[in-house]
Each structure stands twice: as C-alpha cells, then as structure tokens.
C-alpha cells in the first residue's frame, strides 16, 4: 500500500468521524437525516477506496449498498415516517449540544489513546482504520444515549453500523461473510424496527421511546 493510498483512506475515514461529530451537532430532525445520508455517502467512499486499493471488487457491492440503501432509501423512509407520524421536528437532547460535542471529542481522544499507542504488530492502516471506526462507534452510541427521539436513536444505531463496516472493510482480506452479514443485519434490523414502529403507531401517538417507556405497565415502579 502506497503512501498516497494510505493518506486518502485515512482522509476518508477521518471524514466519517467528522460527519459523526456533525451528526451529534444537529438539533433538527431533517438536518439530522440529511447528515446521516452524508455519513452513508462518506462510508461508501471509504469502502470503495478500500475496494480499489485492496483490489477486492466485491467491496464495491458493499459501497453501493451503503450509498443506495443508507444514503438514499433509509433517510427518505425516515423522512416519510417523521412527516406521516407528525413527529416533532426538533430533537430533544438530554444534555446540551455543546456538552455532547465535548464528550464526543473526548471519546475520539479515548479511541485514539486506546488503539494508536498500543499497536505495533498490526499493519498501520488497519490500526488507523480501527481507531476511526472505534470513534464512529462510540459517537454513535453517544448519540443514542443523548437523544430522546426514537428516530435519532435509530440514526445513532445506524452510524454504529457504519463504523463497523468501516472497520470490517479496513481489515485486510476479511471474508465477505462479514459484509453480507452486516448488510443482512441492517436489513433485518430495519424490517423489525419498521414492524415495531408500525405497532407502536397503533398504540402510541409518538415513537418517542421515552414515552413508550413511561407507559410501561410494570407495577413494580409504583411499589
């Protein structure tokens, strides 16, 4: 792997982290969806670049799936759900955006601290790639726990998946099994989420998970 290839891969992966951070920064639903589409696009770029430099054409499929499915289909679907269900257009963050961003940067720092200084034997690209992927995963998790809105949680979850794909494609020669399984799991995840959203729609006015939680019939909270 040449220097330039490495740099480009590095750049794209870094871009994915950046988009993750930006995702964290959004406080409007539609902006969030747009940035998520962007996230998917950057991911597909990263995957495509890996396909190129590793000379593994099957990775283009993954890239295409990421682009088409996560970059277009899902944002649109979520957009329709938001519109049709009359979900609040504003995200309800648990802690302030500033604080979330700060935490996000801290997480990236943690990811780098954990991976970069430690690794000697693994090949450098995989190492960098893992660090970025870990950042994306952690940021996705952070997003899931700092947003009350179910749609934004789903977005957070999908950005975790994106991080995973980034890591998986970065791993040299990782059998296709994994990519397919990731795509497969996303597919199933989405179907099931859709089913649930549908059912939840029947019974609740909002898909806000918090509202769902508060309607629990577990008598134990009320002693």
């Amino acid at each position, binding site marked *: 792997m040449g220097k330039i290839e490495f740099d480009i891969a590095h750049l794209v992966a870094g871009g994915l982290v950046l988009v993750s951070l930006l995702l964290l920064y959004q406080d409007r639903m539609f902006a969030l969806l747009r940035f998520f589409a962007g996230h998917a696009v950057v991911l597909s770029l990263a995957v495509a670049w890996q396909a190129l430099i590793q000379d593994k054409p099957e990775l283009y499929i993954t890239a295409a799936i990421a682009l088409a499915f996560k970059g277009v289909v899902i944002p649109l679907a979520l957009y329709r759900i938001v519109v049709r269900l009359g979900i609040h257009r504003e995200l309800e963050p648990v802690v302030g955006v500033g604080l979330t961003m700060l935490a996000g940067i801290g997480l990236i720092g943690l990811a780098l601290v*954990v*991976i970069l200084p*430690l*690794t*000697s*034997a*693994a*090949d450098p690209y*995989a190492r960098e790639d*893992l660090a970025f*992927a*870990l950042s994306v*995963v952690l940021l996705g*998790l952070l997003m*899931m726990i700092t947003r009350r809105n179910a749609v934004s*949680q789903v977005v957070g*979850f999908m950005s*975790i*998946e994106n*991080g*995973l794909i980034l*890591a*998986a494609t*970065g*791993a*040299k*020669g*990782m*059998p296709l*099994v*994994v990519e397919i*399984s*990731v795509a*497969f*799991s996303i597919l*199933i*995840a989405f179907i*099931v*989420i859709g089913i*649930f959203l549908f*059912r*939840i729609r029947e*019974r609740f006015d909002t898909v806000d*998970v918090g509202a*769902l*939680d508060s*309607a*629990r*019939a*577990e*008598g*134990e909270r009320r*002693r």
Partner: protein
Amino acid sequence: MSWFSLHAPAFILGIPAAAAALLALMPGYRVTARINVAASGLTLLAALALLGERPAPGHFLLVDDLNVVFVLLNAFVGFTTSWFSASYIGHELETGRLTPLYLRFYHAMYQVMMFGMNLALLANNIGLMWVAIELATLTTVMMVGIYRTHEALEAAWKYFILGSVGIALALFGTIIVYVVAQVAIGPGLDAMAWTNLVQYGGRFDPALLNLAFVFLLLGYGTKVGLAPVHAWLPDAHAEGPTPISAVLSGLLLNVALHAVLRFKMVMSTNAGVLAPGPMMITMGLVSLIFAAFMLYRRRDIKRMFAYSSIEHMGIITFAFGMGGPLANFAGLLHMTMHSLTKSAIFFAVGHVAQIKGTQRIAEIKGLTVTHPVLGWGLVLGVVAIAGLPPLGIFMSEFLLVSSTFARDPLLAIPLVFGILVAFGALLLRLNSIAFGEPVGSTARSDASYVPMFAHLALVLAAGLYLPAPLVEWFENVAKVLG
C-alpha cells in the same frame, strides 16, 4: 454408526432448518406442535451421536469437548421444552392470547432459534458464530413480542435495541480479533477459525486482543445477561411465552457464554494480555450481587426467576473467570445444572401462571395446598436453584466457594454475600408462593409435568452422583479452558 456420528453436525443443523421450513407451511397447531417435538427429539438424537466419533474440524464447523457439552444440553432442553410447549401452548390459544397464525409462526421460529443456537455452538468461525447468535437473538425477539400486548412489545423492543447494540459491540470485537489474527495467520477464512485462533493465539498482538475482549465481553455479555448490560433479560423473560423464557434462561444465555469462553481460551493462550479473568470476575460479581438485591422487590414471578438467571450467570462467569481445573469444573457443572433447573422452574411457573391466570406473586399463594405435585415441584426447583443439597447446584457452589476461598479469600466474601442475599430473596418468595393459605384458582393444569420432573430428577441425581465418563469429560473441558 460412525458415519452417523461423523455427520451429526449436519443433522443437528439440518433437522431444525428443515423443520422450520415445514412448520412455516403447515396449519393446525396440534400437528405442528407434535412436529416440533419430533424435530427437537431427532435433533437430540443427532446430538447424542456426537458422543461417539467426532468429525475433524472444518472451515465452518467444529466439534470438540467444549461445545459438545453445550450442544447436548441445548438439544436436551430444547427437546423437553418443546414437549412442555406442546402441552402448554394450546391453552394460550384457548384464552385468546395467541391466534393460530401466530402459533404457526411460533413453532417455525422455535426451530429457527434452535438452528441458530446449534450453529453458534458448532461454528468454527467467529463470523459465522456471530451471525448465528444474531439469528437466534432476532428470532427470540419476535417470540418475546408474540403476545402483542404493551408489555410484550415493549419488552421485545427493549430486547431488540439492547441486543442489537450488544451484537454490534460483539461484531466490533470480532473484527478486531480478525485484524489481529490475520497478521499472524494470514488473511482469509483461516484467520477466523477457532482452531487456528487457539493455535496461534500466542503470536497475536496483546494490546489489540485486550481491546477485542472488552468489546466481546460487553457484546456477548449482553446476551449472557451480565449486569450492567443485562437490562433486556428480565422483561424478555417476563413477557414472552413461558417455553421461550425457559429456552432463553436455559440455553440462549449459555450460547452467549460459550462465545465468551471461546474468546477467553484464545486470550489465555497469549501471555502478554491483560488477564481476562479479573474482568469476568468483576462482571460476574457485579451481576451476582446486583441480581441478588433486585430479587427482593419483584412482583412478577417470571421476572423474579429471570433475575435469578442473571445471578447464576454471574456465578458461572465468576467461576470461569477464576479459572483452574476446580473452578472451571464447577462453572461447567453449574451451567448445566442451572439450565436444567431454571427451565424446570419456568415449566412450573408456566403451569402456575396458566392455573392462576396471573404472574403476580401476590396472587399466588399456598400452592402446595391446592396443587401438591406442582407446588412441591416448584419448591424442589427453587431449593435446587438456591443451591441446597442434595441437588446439583450445591455441588458446583461447594466446589466454587471452597476453592475460591482457599485461593483468594477476598473474592469469596462478595461471592458468598451475593449467594446469601439471593437465597434470602428466593426463599422469601417461595414461602408465600408455596405455603400459607391458598389464593386464586384451584383448577388443574393440562400441561405435562414430565419435562419438569425429568429435569429435576437429573438435577437430583447429579447432586448425589456424577457418572465417571461425564466427570472425565468435564475435567477435560476444564483443562482446555485453562
């Protein structure tokens, strides 16, 4: 015979898969329930064949001492649960909690789940195992939500989200393991095979291996039900159909634990890593003590026993974290006994819930008066799960506690504390459920008592006498686990 033995894995996987397809197509719950039992029974027979000759490990499948324990247990509990389920599920149809369509779905999903779990256990490939566990999880998610009540959907949703996050973490860990392994082994499928990982584990980069183990422990630990990543477990057990609760507690947790153990084996081949033991010990103890306290304020009988599962998975994880021949043996024994006992308890609870029409502990009293057989069966089950002799869990707790205290007294203190606190809670509830003035319906239950007492008989027998071949086998596994 040997041909059969060598191809047993194919049968173990093929029978459930075929049965799932068949069941999805067939109407009429009486027939499908029987087919479900028959398929599970055949799977059990196939699993028994593994006791004979074993096929050599391939790229995708592997049969060794360790997973044969799990597969056999899986097939056995799967079979008895399907038996119980067949006699149980009709009542759900009568009360209108399930429709025939959903029942069809239920039976098909049951076999898919068995397929997923067996695959996860037999896989020689960390990716394949991950996929299989994911499959099993997704099917159980749907089973948990099958009653479509608020609570059931909520539990399923919780399970789904938390399970998905867990599985994502596990995947990340798996990828890291591959990244480390491909340096030593070379890219491709070989770098994902257990056999290779264990063989070359010493050459892996220890730092990355540590990182991977953190993700794997948390990720698969979610499935095992370790605190603080346990949250899906109580609700999923409480709201799903009782046979599923039995399978979840008895099997799925073990399957996830099997994954953790495999990775621990890889870790233990590497001298440079941060020992996985302390992490497992910590999580085990946290789960044990946390669940012990949580047992006290439970009002739902199934949720209570779900917490008891967390407690026991904590003990088992602790045991494997301690390592060494004695603790590993105790861990294996405890796991086996817990599976049998806990599923027996859930069978009993299923009867109780059907008779009384409620799962609320406050509305179930004096069971030994109105239903002596069921009541005493439940007493026996709870006594067993509480670790009293002469039942099997006593033996494993005996070995674990005594050996831990001799090795590291400070670790034994929280262990004993947790066991005692949990014991107090279980007994408190048992007192009111089994004894005192009866409350609620005194109707008879249609469901079969055979699976429950079969399990309890095994647990009782194991508490008094372990056959030498079994012991030898467990000892081998304990040695492998290091």
